[in-house]
């Protein structure tokens, strides 16, 4: 396959065309707002294309380790099902759909683990879990680069 330009570069180039060539020639206000939104979505997608597999794999490992620690510490029943689902997920594949599938199951395990830590009154585990949420959010923020409510 053709590796360069990267997907990130292709999408950013599309943004440039959209914003520099297409947008100035569009007179309709509604369409202008849609194009601004579309440009933002493409920029988001460019960042994701560049980093999402690495970020999801890193987060997945941390979420899984955390959920197993909470399960072992609290013995919470609610963690058994999500952890079992995570165990059978396609961890080895780097195809995006598989990476997303594993990440989704790990996210479910993290949700259940945080609830279990909270219910058990384990502030140390809650703190550890919210640190993972902060990491996740930092990646999401890197993708979106801020929220400005275009057109309003």
């Amino acid at each position, binding site marked *: 396959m053709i590796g360069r330009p990267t997907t990130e570069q292709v999408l950013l180039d599309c943004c440039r065309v959209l914003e520099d060539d297409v947008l100035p020639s569009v007179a309709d206000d509604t369409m202008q707002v849609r194009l601004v939104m579309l440009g933002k979505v493409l920029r988001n997608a460019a960042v994701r294309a560049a980093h999402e597999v690495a970020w999801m794999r890193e987060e997945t490992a941390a979420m899984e380790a955390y959920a197993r620690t909470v399960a072992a510490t609290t013995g919470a029943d609610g963690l058994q099902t999500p952890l079992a689902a995570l165990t059978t997920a396609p961890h080895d594949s780097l195809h995006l759909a598989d990476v997303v599938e594993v990440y989704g199951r790990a996210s479910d395990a993290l949700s259940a683990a945080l609830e279990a830590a909270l219910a058990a009154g384990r502030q140390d585990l809650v703190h550890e879990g919210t640190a993972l949420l902060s990491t996740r959010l930092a990646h999401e923020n890197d993708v*979106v680069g801020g929220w400005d409510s275009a057109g309003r």
Partner: protein
Amino acid sequence: MPDPTMTPEALERLLASVEPGRRAAVTAFRPITGGYSRLSAVADVRWDDGGTERLVLRGDPPPGDGVFVSDRDAEWRILQALSHARSVPVARPRWYDAAGEFFGTKCIVFDHFTGRSLQDVLRQAGGDPAPGRMFVDTVARIHATPLDALGDAVERPGSWEDYVDGVLELYRAVDREVSESSPVLRYASALLARHRPPPVPFTLVHGDCQPSNVLVADSGEHIVIDWEFAHIGDPREDLGYYSQIPMPPNVYHRDPQSFLARYREQTGLSEEQVNPDTVQYFLVIGMAHLLAQMLRAVDAVARGESRGVMATYLINAVTHQYGLYLELCQRVAA
């Protein structure tokens, strides 16, 4: 129902039906941009008796299009109730195409109000505090609407505790419903149910409370628009909702203490009930239904459906909300 046909011809047909004794011609018609949910347009009408008027049309987009869903029948009922109650100034609702007979979609027709949005006024106000005060007073006035004046136009919740728990449960429900779990929502829902703030009496809640939804005439007269998410609930939902609005200037963030002191003065609520911490808590409550709709739209895209660019664009807003929710949770848990 076929796709919406909010056109001059459709409006003329409606006017011929509701005013059979005279004929109207639509002399100008233009869509309104900037809304994130409904289709809107402004129309100039000339009647055959020489009269003219300007009207606003507000209709539903095609089913499955866009992100936000609301009930036009409910909005029509509440507008009529508010119009009669005169507790809050609203654009006079004139006619309602409830079956989509004329516009191919449910569509409310209002009197046009000539004015600028209060958000525009605030942008140009510089250091003048008057427009900010007008916003606080308008919010307080919405919340002072006697619930009896609404009749059965709006559903009344049961107990305050059940109401707040029900909203928090919505987050868990949507998390189960969509294909990807959101740990921030699950955590916020579980944590905040354990840390409820003191209750206050239910009031009318606007549901999209921001200066962009207040129109101000040069005379200072003003109206409140966009009642599609109005409901009876906790008035602090509107304060929390406004606190997350990103467009500058945000009157609340400019000086939260002054904003809330004026609001308390107008409403008689106490500082224990209304303070920056309770506002932050009610951001989560006030955003619940809209965030749930955003998550459902994003999930629809993940299932291969198209909701227009709005659904993927609003992923930005979802991230923004998650950041605010996590900040609140970290404070509450500390």
